[in-house]
């Protein structure tokens, strides 16, 4: 496949804003790196959202990143994301590392620019566990090779995908092959397309050189029954069609009796190509796609995407819009957690909780429907505001929900929290400690259950979250039970936030007063030529977003949702990156289940609260 394209002189490489002395003084990490690695730093600056950016020589990436993680003055212990950006026209592909320091509350983006002839970086899997899957995704989508990566193979596309690297600009939206050829190929897959080489070797195909992991003495004591039984390890395939994997997740498990020795997750069965498709849609047309990524809490995605574009545009939304977005976000957090509660309970055998939680969900769906017309696919935000103002009577319905919801939560808690079966199935199962949780990049309730009080709403408040009085629940043991308790408490805190927002909901306009961004009202559009032209331009062309890049993150129901956007000043995004929290969270599954019993795989997988639409995107 062609990897080099003739450079297009009209396309300029998008640069962060030039460095200033003030910026350098402000950000100690950039200062330290500049002092330490004088010849590795190419450029420093800030992007449109004020995010500090450090551009380094690609050959030195491991060195610089190790310094940033290990130096106590920097302590970037949390790697939020690794992703690529291809601007097309033969310019170098950028690889972004999004870093966050829990200790210093500081953020930084490290960018490497790789020419198309030399798409190689050194792996950082030895620094952060979470880099494993993120690097594989970057390899899968852009063809960037990470030297030293233990298992660099495709992750979202099939193992032997032959059409190329989908997120490259030279890759056509509909793929390289014809549709009939794509259907023919997908139905004639061989074993090598479905299993990793390692798994085939474990199952006895090929050379069989992969040693099987022996159980440790703790896992199998001297007097264990298994020692007296003849047997051999077994490879089972769980999913992609399985009632308890919460979607089309596939796990290959190597079992020793009932005990899980190895767990290899396979994802990508729902890879929908969101990021590629968004590059072919106007800025506002992307909003409906965001619904379908996390369909358990769609409005959180709507709000995050609109917030990201507004940051790049540099517009400030109205007070009323801000408060309404907070209400919707928190309602959707409850919506997502309720589904988690119901399905997890059903996985562990408690059916009643499922019915109770869906009863409450239907009430939130009714609120969705009254506002947007859709139950799940809401598409509620527009850049610069919302699709409409709240309908009459909506606030009263919301108040009624907020009053009645806690009683259902109490009921569910009465059924589960002190239930002997529930406690036996969840307590001390799937434990992860705080350091490992941070290294695996866990966010949201999964991280907080391990005792790390990291919540984007507190750490980097957005939408005015600093004005609301709420607590961040934190667990102690980091097991399945703690994740359950944290989520239950988070729903109560969300109700508190909604109550406060309802009590102080400002009046005034919902959308901003800038007809270059939002549609003018119909009455005005027909009244004067200026507004009519604006209306026409917005409908026919769409918004124009100034050239630049930004990173905007919110606390979604599953964890930190980061949205990276690159614009070249046109009416469509050049790159839309969605850092879905589920993608990173599920990567910790092997760590959590290896050594546990096979029945606990269900409990642990459910406790991570993943949604496949977001994992596979």
């Amino acid at each position, binding site marked *: 496949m062609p990897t080099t394209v003739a450079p297009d002189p009209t396309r300029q490489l998008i640069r962060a804003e030039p460095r200033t002395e003030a910026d350098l003084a402000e950000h100690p990490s950039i200062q330290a790196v500049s002092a330490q690695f004088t010849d590795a730093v190419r450029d420093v600056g800030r992007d449109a959202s004020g995010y500090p950016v450090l551009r380094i020589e690609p050959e030195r990436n491991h060195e610089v990143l190790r310094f940033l993680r290990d130096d106590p003055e920097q302590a970037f212990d949390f790697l939020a994301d690794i992703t690529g950006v291809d601007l097309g026209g033969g310019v170098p592909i950028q690889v972004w590392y999004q870093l966050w320091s829990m200790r210093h509350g500081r953020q930084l983006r490290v960018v490497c620019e790789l020419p198309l002839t030399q798409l190689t970086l050194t792996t950082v899997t030895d620094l952060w566990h979470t880099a494993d899957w993120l690097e594989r995704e970057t390899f899968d989508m852009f063809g960037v090779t990470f030297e030293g990566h233990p298992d660099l193979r495709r992750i979202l596309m*099939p193992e032997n995908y032959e059409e190329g690297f989908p997120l490259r600009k030279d890759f056509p939206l509909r793929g390289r092959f014809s549709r009939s050829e794509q*259907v023919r190929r997908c139905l004639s897959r061989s074993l090598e397309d479905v299993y990793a080489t390692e798994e085939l070797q474990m199952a006895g195909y090929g050379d069989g050189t992969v040693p099987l992991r022996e159980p440790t003495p703790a896992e199998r004591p001297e007097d264990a029954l298994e020692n007296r039984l003849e047997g051999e390890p077994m490879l089972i395939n769980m999913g992609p069609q399985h009632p308890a994997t919460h979607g089309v997740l596939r796990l290959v498990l190597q079992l020793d009796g009932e005990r899980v020795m190895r767990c290899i997750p396979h994802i990508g069965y729902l890879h929908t190509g969101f990021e590629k498709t968004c590059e072919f849609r106007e800025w506002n047309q992307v909003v409906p796609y965001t619904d379908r990524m996390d369909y358990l809490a769609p409005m959180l995605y709507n709000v995050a995407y609109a917030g990201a574009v507004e940051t790049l545009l540099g517009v400030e939304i109205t007070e009323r819009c801000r408060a309404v977005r907070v209400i919707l976000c928190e309602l959707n957090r409850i919506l997502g957690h309720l589904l988690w509660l119901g399905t997890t309970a059903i996985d562990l055998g408690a059916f009643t909780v499922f019915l109770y939680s869906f009863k409450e969900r239907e009430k939130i769906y009714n609120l969705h429907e009254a506002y947007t017309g859709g139950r799940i696919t809401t598409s509620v935000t527009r850049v610069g505001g919302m699709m409409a103002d709240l309908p009459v009577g909506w606030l009263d319905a919301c108040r009624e929900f907020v009053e009645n919801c806690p009683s259902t939560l109490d009921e569910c808690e009465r059924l589960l929290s002190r239930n002997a079966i529930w406690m036996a199935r969840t307590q001390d199962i799937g434990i992860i400690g705080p350091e490992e949780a941070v290294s695996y990049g866990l966010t949201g309730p999964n991280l907080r259950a391990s005792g790390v009080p990291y919540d984007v709403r507190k750490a980097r408040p957005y939408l005015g979250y600093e004005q609301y009085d709420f607590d961040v629940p934190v667990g102690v043991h980091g097991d399945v039970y703690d994740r359950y308790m944290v989520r239950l408490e988070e729903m109560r805190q969300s109700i508190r936030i909604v109550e406060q927002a309802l009590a102080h909901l400002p009046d005034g306009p919902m959308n901003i007063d800038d007809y270059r961004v939002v549609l003018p009202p119909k009455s005005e559009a027909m009244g004067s030529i200026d507004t009519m032209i604006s209306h026409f331009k917005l409908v026919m062309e769409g918004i124009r977003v100034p050239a630049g890049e930004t990173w905007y993150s919110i606390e979604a129901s599953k964890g930190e949702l980061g949205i990276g956007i690159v614009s070249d000043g046109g009416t469509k995004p050049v790159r839309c990156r969605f850092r879905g929290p589920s993608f990173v969270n599920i990567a910790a599954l092997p760590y959590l289940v290896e050594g546990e019993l096979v029945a606990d795989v269900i409990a642990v997988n459910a406790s991570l609260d993943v949604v*496949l639409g977001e994992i596979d995107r």
Partner: protein
Amino acid sequence: MTKLDVLQPDSSVDTGIPRSWVTTRLDHVINWARRNSLWPMPFGTACCAIEMMAAAASKYDIGRFGMERMSFTPRQADLMIVAGRVTYKLAPVMRRIWDQMPQPKWCVSMGACASSGGMFDNYTIVQGIDTIVPVDVYVPGCPPRPEGLMYGLLMIQEKIKGESLAHPVARAEDPDAVGRPNLPPEAIELVAQPFGNSTKQNRVSGLSSNSAVARERDRIERLMEHRE
């Protein structure tokens, strides 16, 4: 074709089995039993699966139609509900599940993505699952409300009413079709053109009419052609 015509066993197909009062009554009893105890195999992938769960939960309660026994193994199911987008990576899995289901079996394509690729006309989404497996009822919507799914399931029930054991090919398994696309390459190209999947679905699927009850005969005709 009127509704009444379809409810009668199809007299145009010569099966060699004489139409008698006994065989038609037997059909009646068997179809009554089949349509009121459908065991769905929920092949849920995305947003539609959440609406399918809502259809099974407290407010909508699919159990009222004899379908609350969700069968998570294809070998004990007779109705595959494909709810959500199907990727090329997932398509062989879906085809395998369909092949594993014993006859008689039906398939519901729930939602825009399963029926036509929906809003995802890109490199990874199958442009309509009828390119992979035969579909009996398409439920429109993105996602369809639970009422929409239930209406689709009632259409399946209606369709079962018109079936007869005397049809020679309707419920026969074709070993050659296992693991193969449901449509020929030209037909796949036709549905996969931009907008083709929404405008040409009926033609390619062999559905000359949009009427729910008329579909059964269409499918038999197509199967007959396939046999020839």
